[in-house]
């Protein structure tokens, strides 16, 4: 074989390998971060909301059955968080404002779930709730999941990664999670794109329930 030909073949093989490597590694050039990959995977798998017991800021205890027949928009937070959780909840509040009034409470339930049940007892949740006027404790509830196994199962199923840092804070990935009335996770939305999220919710919930803006 000629040297030049071999050279060309070697270069092509390397380039093909590189292409395949990047293609596989990024799910066909769609996911360059693990977070994108996680969201893509969740949307494909559409996991079922596990059976957990919530305790809310009014000390009421219930499971997801409490919200039967409604869509649920959920976020994962901890109240001593000073950074992203506040943005997350503020943005959730803006989504709340953007939705048609008749939809809230009837067709869609707002739910904040704390993953720090030790610190976030009902009293703390109640105080935290006052920061967000839309969080009335009914149509938007602040809850914790006391049972560590149940909490872990939920975080695992929904791909929420929580890493404690050395200052008693947690780093965690954030998103809006939309769960349909059957308890299936149907959308994971970017929490920084408020209008996009609101539109999507109106579209999904409105289609189902026959409401319009």
């Amino acid at each position: 074989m000629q040297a030049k030909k071999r050279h060309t073949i070697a270069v092509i093989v390397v380039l093909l390998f590189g292409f395949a490597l990047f293609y596989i590694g990024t799910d066909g050039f769609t996911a360059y971060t693990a977070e994108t990959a996680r969201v893509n995977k969740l949307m494909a798998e559409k996991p079922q909301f596990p059976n957990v017991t919530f305790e809310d800021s009014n000390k009421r205890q219930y499971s997801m059955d409490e919200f039967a027949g409604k869509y649920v928009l959920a976020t994962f937070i901890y109240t001593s968080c000073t950074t992203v959780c506040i943005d997350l909840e503020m943005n959730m509040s803006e989504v709340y404002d953007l939705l048609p009034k008749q939809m809230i409470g009837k067709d869609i339930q707002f739910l904040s779930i704390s993953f720090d049940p030790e610190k976030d007892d009902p009293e703390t949740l109640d105080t935290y709730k006052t920061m967000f006027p839309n969080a009335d404790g009914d149509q938007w509830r602040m809850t914790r999941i006391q049972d560590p196994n149940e909490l872990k199962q939920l975080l695992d199923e929904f791909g929420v990664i929580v890493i404690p840092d050395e200052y008693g804070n947690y780093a965690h990935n954030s998103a809006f999670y939309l769960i349909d009335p059957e308890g299936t996770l149907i959308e994971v939305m970017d929490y920084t794109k408020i209008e996009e999220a609101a539109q999507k919710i109106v579209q999904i919930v409105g289609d189902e329930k026959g409401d319009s803006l």
Partner: protein
Amino acid sequence: MTQAGYGLALLLFLAIPPIAHLFESIMIIHMHMQMPLLVISGFFIATFFQKRYPGFFEKWNEDGIPGILLFSIVFSYWMIPRTMDEALTVPAVEVFKFISLPFLCGVPLRDSWFKISLFVKKIVFATFTLLFFALGVLYIKAPVQLCNNYLLIDQLTLGWGFLTMAICFMIFIVYYVFTEKEAT
């Protein structure tokens, strides 16, 4: 012990689970120490393959271009935020890291660097300088956490690490340009 032996010893040392875990627990050490050390181990191990299969390198990497391309591609692959995350959460990716960095980066780098022309060396060097600048800015400026397994502060540290490397590369380039002019 031969050079290849030292390389292999380094690779095995890095692969000891507690050692690997220690390196991976800090983001910047994961990317700027463990990964380069893996490449270096391959760089040493390369002598074994060069002696054992001289024909292969002679035939398929005659001018060093395929090898340096392979090095660049695989090394860039490990700069993607996701690959670092998955090395921690997906065991197969972790294994691939320990194989690809020594054998698909270190070995071809050793074989190619002394074959490629000065012009190609300059291109490779400039590309990685630019890439490091870009990654530094990406890791520092990214409004979101790029890696789920590391804290935001680690990400900032890594970003500055990349920028520092890029600045060092730049200093070298400036030094090189000036000394080269003097020599001619």
